[in-house]
């Protein structure tokens, strides 16, 4: 009887896997909220919130998997992705003096449906992949994959440079979730190098957004269609 009960009862999720899955879900839902966000400013704030969730995941992994270096990573990630990057992007919008309504290539409902389809695809494909381990919460990795695919959709379906840049930053958040879940022991120096790289990329995105706005007086990408063939 005891054996029967043990085999039929699903295992109770650990604090790590339960927390990681919940946070990964928050990250994905924030991505969906970006599709719904009417203004670029709100999109950037959502990115800041999403990054906050990723920093929280780093703290959770540090505490439950006993990887103290991740506390430092969580701190750096907070400073960079929650404060600096959104700050730089909001400053750019302020300088451009455009209170931009994000430009959708499709209606919000169609975009969200596409994003749901992409999420389902990413989630179940990763579920079928042979990436499994005792400590690994497989659903969290599936959610990270879904988040990366939805970030791609965000870049494709939005026709303004700010949304596209935020889409790329969100993709990086998805990779961060995957990295925390499957490679929490990645040396701190490399994690810091990745974050520094992100900072440099943000600066370059900012410079190019300024150049684009300076030339066209708009943040729309509709004018970026001269080069073809």
């Amino acid at each position: 009887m005891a054996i029967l009960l043990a085999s039929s009862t699903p295992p109770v999720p650990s604090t790590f896997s339960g927390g990681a899955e919940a946070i990964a879900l928050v990250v994905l839902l924030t991505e969906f909220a970006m599709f719904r966000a009417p203004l670029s400013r709100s999109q950037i704030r959502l990115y800041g919130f999403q990054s906050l969730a990723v920093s929280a995941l780093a703290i959770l992994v540090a505490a439950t998997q006993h990887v103290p270096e991740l506390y430092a990573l969580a701190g750096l990630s907070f400073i960079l992705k929650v404060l600096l990057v959104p700050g730089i992007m909001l400053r750019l919008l302020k300088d451009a003096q455009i209170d931009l309504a994000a430009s959708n290539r499709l209606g919000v409902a169609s975009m969200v449906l596409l994003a749901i389809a992409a999420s389902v695809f990413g989630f179940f494909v990763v579920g079928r992949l042979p990436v499994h381990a005792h400590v690994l919460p497989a659903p969290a990795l599936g959610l990270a994959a879904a988040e990366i695919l939805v970030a791609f959709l965000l870049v494709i379906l939005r026709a303004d440079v700010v949304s596209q840049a935020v889409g790329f930053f969100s993709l990086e958040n998805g990779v961060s979730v995957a990295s925390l879940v499957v490679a929490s022991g990645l040396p701190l120096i490399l994690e810091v190098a990745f974050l520094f790289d992100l900072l440099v990329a943000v600066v370059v995105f900012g410079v190019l957004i300024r150049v684009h706005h300076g030339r066209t007086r708009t943040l729309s990408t509709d004018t970026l269609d001269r080069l073809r063939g």
Partner: protein
Amino acid sequence: MGWDLLVLTVVPFVVSITCWWAPVTLGRLLSLASGVLSFALALLLVPAKTTTAAAGWLRVDALSVVFLVAVTFLYAATTIFSIGYVRPGGASEANARYNRRFFAGLNLFAWSMAMAPMVNGLALLWVAIEVTTVVSALLVAIDDTDGAAEAAWKYVLIASMGLGIALLGTVIMYYAGTSVFGTGYELFYPKLLGAAGRFPAGVVRLSFVLAVLGYGTKMGLVPVHTWLPDAHSEAPTPVSALLSGSLLAVSFYAILRFYQISVRAIGPTFPRDVLLAFGIASLGLAALYLASQRDLKRLFAYSSVEHMGVLAIGMSFSAPIAVVGVLLHVLAHAAAKGTAFFGAGSMVSKFGTKEMTRLRGGVGGLPWSGPMLVLAVLGLCALPPFGIFRSEFLIVSGGLRDPHDAVAAVLIVLVTLATLGLTWFSSQTLLTPTPDGVLRKETSGWIVCSMVIGLGALALLGVHPPAQLSDLLTRAAHELRGVS
């Protein structure tokens, strides 16, 4: 020998910073000296087996040296070309500012590309390649035209998304290693290669596909190549030469490092099949697009997609001679494409346009660089006696020994198709009568000098590659295939 790795790590970076502040003439001369010194140091590494420095964070083996030679050769040649192409501009402050920014960016770009084959490990490799993206995106935009701004935006966005996927591939490979090393370890090559045989096969497969897709974006593999023609055509010509001859090669190097690990973990069949699919798609699409170009630099950009396809297909062949051919192709393509872009820059300087319908009589108007551009195009078309003839000959020979020898036939057909497009449009531009009023005169001796060097290297690789270089290529091919 570790000291030369340290010098290579420091000098171009310091020169880049110096160029930002120093007087224009000093910056130009320092850039030239840095390029030549870097190439000389890379050549010193050719006979060495493995060299390490900085507590193992820097490490070059034969495979790294092949790519380091390609990068530093083009760095040196491009600085010579740039001195002729980018005018100092006298007392104009705007021109001086452009010169400072350009040479600072050029040196930083070359530095980041040289770092990629020198760093030890997949994670640092990703960091180096990401740095190449951000620096080169700014260089693409430096001319501040509508086209340059558009090309730079598309480039930085698409390449960064691709590198996001490559980072995921790196993380997954790290995860594969945890089954052997536990949760915390460094991603150094010798460690990964030594234990790759015990990595879980499915995880390695996933990592390899993500790496090819991610780094393939930077390498210009179809269907993730869309940034490439725009960036190559709109960037200043010296940057186009470096993008095409060096940057694509460095991205290919990253794929080869994943290939090297994957072959040991899961055997050669799966990695070869993946590269074959991307290679055929790239070569096929480039062959079609080469037949419909109207912009000279865009023509050479699609030629780069074609040659990246040849590299990917070459790696799909099982014969060792094909792998040697692939590595020789990396060097020959750097020399040929550099020379071709230098020639295109000379044409653009002379006629003030890139549009081939308005470019006429290149050979008549440019007594040295015109004929040399014709030779460079013939070199790109794999005609003897140039290096690409030898490398493609080796690749096809390897392909004909492969069980799937039909792929070699497809390769020959598609390369021939690409050759037709390239030669037809180039001859329309170069071998037609010179318009009235165009003086038969070069725009700069520095440009001619850079083309002589590029063409000389291309001929040397074709006629008689130095014995030490041949030995290097053989050792690198053995490293790739897992034969000691």
